[in-house]
């Protein structure tokens, strides 16, 4: 038996230590505690997963209850942990990538005066995320779902001296999704009477008619939560703004772990989704559209972190596409590989920003390759991985998702995904060439301070870079039969997922097409941006000015939301405030007050201040009472 609570306990202890005593500890101690706790969690995860692997393939499932929590009537929810191959992958990603990012953050945040607070939040986040993926019931999942949301809010607004609209935006947009998620959980409970995964998935096929309205409603509500947390259409708008937070936060929370919680949740609920084809279709289409949509915005953005952020949204779209076409394992695989290369991209961006003293506009960068050798090299690897070039990580997972779509005869989805892949390759290398090659557009004062980041930052980059090379091929080859698939597939097979039959020839062909698309994108980007003085991009923008403006302004979605939701609510609230609250409620209160004041004005004449008058009143009272007593009968 594996004691699972050894995994999340370390970040919790780290959080408590830093939260209560962080300000009194030396910086090195804080760093050691923060990284050490996550490192221990990673070790514990590895041990636990090792223990899981030692079990026979069909029985890889460890469950344990730490403590009872809620027990009302026949409803029960416990502090229960579950480790199966699905959560094992998640736990490894969270703890290992989290550890690397913690180490990197020690360097990145070194000069920040709120160093302990940052790591307090980060540890709390790691703990919450580990609990989220280890939870064995929906209620616990929901609690930590909100907890990671809270950490995200706190960390986006970490520099609260600056105007922190982004944190609020993330919080509010997530509320919409979480509201749906909460409703879904409640509906699930009223329907099945339990929130425990094992019982839910066992009961679902018998209690819920496949394709029925109930299961569709539940899954759509759950998916609404997922779109909020994982930044899908239409609730993605918070993620680009969340880049206001420190870069390690962007890497950890808004690329590698938290935003993938939605994917994890959908995959975890695959048994439910399999019963609801309509919901599956919605997931697939939302995913595919998001993938293309976000990629198209990324084509023209000039903020280095925003490009990567839109890329994240796009890649999350691929994961949902995978889920939607039933390729849960591939989606989770993409989640894992994406965690490596996207974290690397963010950390690389952070390294660049760090080197340039806070500059984020790529139009003011260029020719950094020589001055930031490690950063540029690892960034290049990550860009290749993200573009899906063989044999790097992204190729294996993304290709699987597209192949699954194709194999499921969802050709339109496949076409969208492929278009997205082209755009992905293009914007990644636009970014790479503009930043690291091209023309030197640095601002003079920043120019000669440019330096490579300290080892504490570059080593995590290198480790993640190695991951980009290795993770995909090592676990993903050969497709459908690699180590990863043999490990994870049983979970989804048990949930009733039907594998898509696809011939090896078709697989090869699709891989070739995908690689060709990616290569084409890279080639165009190289042609346009390698030298930095090619007029083609500008000409293209001139020629399609309308389209360019549309993309530049991110499809005017923020403006649309402002007009459609924010303004009406604002105006409604204003009306309620000025008309309803101030005039009606306050009016009633004031009127009541006036009434009593007027009554008091009348009554105060009786308060003459002369004792004698009071005595007379007293006497009159005595006379009346005595009269009553004497003559009542």
């Amino acid at each position, binding site marked *: 038996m594996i004691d699972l609570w050894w995994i999340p306990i370390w970040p919790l202890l780290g959080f408590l230590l830093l939260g209560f005593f962080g300000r009194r500890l030396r910086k090195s101690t804080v760093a050691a505690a923060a990284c050490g706790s996550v490192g221990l969690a990673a070790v514990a995860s590895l041990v636990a997963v090792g223990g899981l692997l030692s079990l026979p393939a069909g029985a890889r499932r460890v469950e344990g209850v730490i403590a009872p929590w809620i027990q009302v009537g026949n409803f029960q929810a416990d502090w229960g942990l579950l480790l199966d191959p699905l959560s094992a992958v998640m736990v490894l990603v969270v703890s290992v990538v989290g550890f690397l990012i913690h180490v990197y953050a020690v360097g990145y945040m070194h000069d920040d005066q709120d160093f302990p607070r940052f790591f307090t939040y980060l540890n709390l986040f790691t703990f919450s995320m580990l609990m989220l993926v280890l939870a064995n019931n929906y209620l616990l999942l929901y609690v930590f779902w909100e907890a990671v949301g809270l950490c995200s809010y706190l960390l986006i607004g970490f520099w609260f001296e600056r105007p922190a609209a982004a944190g609020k935006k993330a919080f509010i947009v997530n509320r919409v999704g979480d509201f749906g998620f909460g409703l879904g959980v409640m509906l699930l409970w009223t329907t099945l009477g339990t929130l425990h995964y094992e019982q839910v998935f066992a009961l679902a096929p018998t209690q819920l008619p496949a394709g029925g309205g109930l299961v569709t409603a539940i899954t759509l509500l759950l998916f609404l939560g997922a779109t909020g947390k994982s930044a899908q259409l239409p609730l993605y708008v918070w993620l680009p703004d969340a880049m206001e937070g420190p870069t390690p936060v962007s890497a950890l929370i808004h690329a590698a772990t938290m935003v993938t919680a939605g994917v994890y949740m959908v995959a975890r609920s695959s048994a439910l989704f399999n019963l609801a084809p309509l919901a599956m279709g919605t997931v697939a289409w939302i995913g595919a559209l998001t993938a293309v949509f976000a990629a198209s915005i990324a084509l023209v953005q000039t903020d280095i972190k925003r490009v990567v952020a839109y890329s994240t949204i796009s890649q999350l779209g691929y994961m949902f596409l995978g889920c939607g076409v039933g390729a849960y394992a591939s989606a989770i695989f993409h989640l894992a590989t994406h965690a490596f290369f996207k974290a690397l991209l963010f950390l690389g961006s952070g390294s660049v920003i760090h080197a340039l003293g806070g500059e984020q506009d790529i139009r003011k960068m260029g020719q950094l390759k020589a001055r930031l050798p490690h950063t540029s090299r690892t960034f290049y690897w990550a860009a290749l991985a993200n573009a899906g070039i063989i044999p790097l990580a992204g190729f294996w997972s993304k290709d699987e998702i597209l192949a699954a779509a194709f194999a499921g005869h969802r050709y339109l989805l496949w076409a969208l995904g492929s278009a997205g892949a082209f755009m992905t390759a293009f914007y990644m290398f636009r970014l790479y060439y503009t930043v690291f090659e091209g023309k030197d557009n640095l601002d003079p004062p920043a120019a000669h301070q440019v330096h490579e980041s300290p080892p504490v930052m570059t080593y995590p980059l290198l480790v993640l870079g190695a991951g980009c090379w290795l993770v995909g091929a090592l676990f993903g080859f050969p497709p459908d039969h690699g180590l990863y698939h043999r490990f994870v597939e049983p979970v989804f097979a048990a949930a009733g997922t039907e594998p898509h039959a696809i011939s090896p020839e078709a697989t090869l062909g699709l891989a070739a097409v995908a690689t060709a698309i990616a290569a084409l994108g890279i080639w165009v980007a190289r042609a346009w941006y390698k030298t930095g003085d090619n007029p083609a991009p500008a000409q293209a923008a001139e020629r399609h000015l309308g389209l360019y403006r549309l993309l530049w302004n991110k499809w005017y979605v923020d403006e649309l939301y402002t007009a459609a939701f924010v303004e009406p609510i604002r105006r409604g609230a204003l009306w309620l405030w000025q008309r309803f609250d101030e005039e009606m409620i306050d009016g009633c209160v004031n009127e009541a007050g006036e009434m009593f004041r007027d009554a008091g004005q009348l009554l105060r*004449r009786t*308060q*003459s*201040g*002369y*004792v*004698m008058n009071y005595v007379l009143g007293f*006497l009159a009272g005595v006379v009346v009472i005595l009269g009553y007593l004497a003559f009542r009968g």
Partner: protein
Amino acid sequence: MTVPLSAYLILSAFLFFLGVVGVATRRNALIVFMCIELMLNAVNLSFVAFARSLNSMAGHVFVFFVMAVATAEVAVGLAIIIAIYRNRETVDVAELNLLKW
């Protein structure tokens, strides 16, 4: 006892009446106070008269309590009057109207 109870009670009522009149009409706080004492005495008289009439000692005990309360009242009341006089140089209750609206 040859004196009827009602005789005592009428005397008591009359003394009580005097006390009430005094409290209601006099402006000198000290006299007002004395009239209160007069009322208490009137009540005491009826207590004792009833006690004799009913042959029950409870009336005497109540007189004892009344006297204890009267003593306490006088101690505090006179202290208040002295304090007021120190402050306002008067014991005329008609001029003590600090509580006026």
